[in-house]
């Protein structure tokens, strides 16, 4: 009789025992780490955490360098019902402080390289643990390698992880995703990608970025294997493919920008990744001209899968297998049908469902919908709301802010834009207000507005319009860099004596946009 699997710790335990000798990781240097090693190490780290009084319901923050130890810390947390959150080491200290304030981690794991950055933050230095030292390895090695009993007490409704995303008030939001959310997600991934224990996943996505949820859980929680790829390698796509080729990955998932980047730098060859079965992309639209280039290289032997899903709904909600017909059309790829265990509504301006093919806001319901934003009931209540069509019982929908239309004949959703000021850059969600708030925090900026000017279907420029006491662009950018991550920095800065105002006395963003679009 099979075991009742109700949390991710138990699932990993089952997978690791079954695949004990099989590789969990193939590293870029060619070395292989079997499941039994990760299982033992994560059990030891879990027991170490218990001695530190870190228990179910606590949060643990990680500066994750994709080392075996760092992945093992994530698994150890899952085994205890401790919520992990991987924070972006490239974020400025000011933003890391905000994420610390929100998540209040009981401990913070880092490697030695990023230790100094953490010391600069407001985090209590005595609670920092450097997982890259020999001292840590020796400490961990002294603990039992058996699964701790605490794993049995982790219920599916407990948060598995927090994933931070941009917030319009200037504060990032920590999306709460539960064990049950992820278990459902793994079931969907296993079926949709027909994952077997012979599959080899790339983990190109940084672990603070939502797409990595697919890499991590679809591989290590199904008995497949994963190739960790660090940022210094992804920066150089030629090197990336050279290193990946001998490892024979079968499933790739990244933002389209990563593939466009590799294509534009002429780093992908027809024969690269000859074992690849599926190239999957999501997080933003794939520019059609570049998609056609990739299709020419790989289309005859690799399945192309376009996926869609907000962070708030556990990474992916819908998928679409790309066909020649899609390639021939000029419009963006469809988002696909919603996953079978999901429901959706498309709500129009009047607050009621729209007809087929009419544009409205996509609202998602089902077992992938997360619990909201950590420590942020106001923002949670704005977008995690009762399904307006259900009056008899509780049914929470997530209002995605994405404008879509649904073609019932094809059973396909199409992306049509955003209802707010959120944009995507390299797949990262950016609320333009977060940049405005950061600019507003600079003492010499008297007034500002940030606008986004699309240059084509999928790309655009962020333009900061300023009334400023200082008119030195490089000084302003370097000050802004201390508050927001580099992917949020404006492409251009324009200076004004007075910013245009509308009838209500507010900055007229529409007029500014017209100025640049004209």
């Amino acid at each position: 009789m099979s075991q009742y699997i109700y949390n991710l710790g138990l699932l990993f335990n089952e997978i690791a025992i079954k695949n004990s000798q099989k590789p969990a990781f193939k590293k870029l240097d060619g070395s292989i780490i079997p499941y039994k090693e990760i299982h033992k190490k994560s059990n030891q780290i879990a027991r170490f955490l218990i001695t530190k009084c870190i228990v179910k319901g606590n949060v643990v923050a990680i500066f994750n360098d994709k080392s075996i130890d760092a992945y093992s810390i994530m698994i150890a947390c899952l085994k205890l019902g401790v919520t992990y959150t991987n924070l972006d080491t490239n974020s400025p200290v000011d933003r890391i402080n905000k994420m610390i304030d929100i998540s209040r981690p009981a401990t913070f794991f880092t490697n030695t390289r990023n230790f100094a950055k953490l010391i600069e933050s407001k985090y209590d230095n005595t609670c920092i643990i450097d997982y890259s030292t020999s001292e840590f390895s020796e400490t961990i090695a002294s603990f039992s390698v058996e699964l701790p009993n605490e794993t049995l007490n982790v219920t599916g409704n407990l948060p598995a992880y927090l994933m931070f995303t941009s917030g319009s008030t200037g504060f990032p939001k920590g999306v709460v995703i539960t064990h049950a959310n992820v278990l459902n997600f793994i079931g969907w991934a296993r079926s949709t990608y027909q994952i077997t224990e012979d599959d080899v996943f790339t983990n190109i996505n940084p672990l603070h970025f939502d797409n990595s949820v697919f890499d991590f859980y679809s591989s290590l929680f199904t008995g497949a294997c994963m190739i960790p790829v660090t940022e210094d390698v992804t920066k150089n796509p030629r090197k990336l493919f050279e290193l990946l080729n001998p490892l024979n990955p079968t499933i790739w998932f990244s933002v389209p920008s990563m593939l466009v980047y590799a294509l534009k730098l002429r780093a992908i060859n027809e024969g690269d990744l000859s074992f690849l079965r599926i190239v999957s992309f999501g997080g933003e639209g794939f520019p059609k001209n570049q998609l056609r280039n990739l299709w020419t290289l790989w289309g005859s032997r690799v399945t192309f899968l376009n996926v869609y899903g907000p962070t708030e709904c556990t990474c992916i909600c819908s998928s679409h297998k790309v066909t020649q017909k899609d390639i021939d059309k000029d419009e963006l790829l469809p988002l696909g049908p919603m996953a079978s265990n999901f429901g959706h509504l498309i709500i129009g301006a009047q607050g009621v469902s729209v007809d087929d093919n009419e544009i409205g806001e996509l609202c998602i319901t089902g077992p992938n919908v997360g619990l909201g934003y950590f420590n942020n009931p106001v923002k949670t209540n704005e977008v995690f709301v009762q399904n307006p069509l259900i009056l008899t019982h509780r049914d929470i929908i997530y209002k995605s802010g994405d404008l879509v239309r649904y073609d019932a004949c094809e059973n396909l959703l199409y992306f049509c834009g955003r209802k707010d000021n959120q944009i995507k850059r390299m797949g990262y969600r950016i609320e333009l207000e977060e940049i405005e708030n950061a600019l507003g925090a600079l003492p010499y900026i008297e007034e500002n507005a940030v606008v986004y000017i699309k240059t084509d279907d999928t790309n655009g420029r962020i333009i900061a319009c300023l009334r400023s006491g200082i008119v030195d662009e490089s000084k302003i950018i370097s000050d802004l860099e201390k508050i927001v991550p580099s992917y949020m920095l404006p492409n251009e800065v324009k200076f004004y004596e007075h910013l245009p105002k509308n009838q209500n006395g507010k900055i007229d963003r529409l007029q500014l946009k017209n100025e640049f679009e004209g």
Partner: protein
Amino acid sequence: MRTGKLAMDKVNQILVKTFKISSEEAQKNLTMNDVSRWDSITHMDLIVSIEDEFQVRLSGDDIAEMITFDAIRATLTKYIS
């Protein structure tokens, strides 16, 4: 086709504009790791700007080498001389 100092001045201008650095910094031999704004987005912008400005099509091998300011200048010299 521009050669010599004029071309290098133009390269420096592209570096200043792409990475939002000062013209003094653009003249140094900074690497991908030295320049905080040198990520995949700006790297792509850099390559496209150079190709547009000098009307050249860089090879994949050469692009792979262009990860320091000096390497960028050396590669471009090869194309325009």
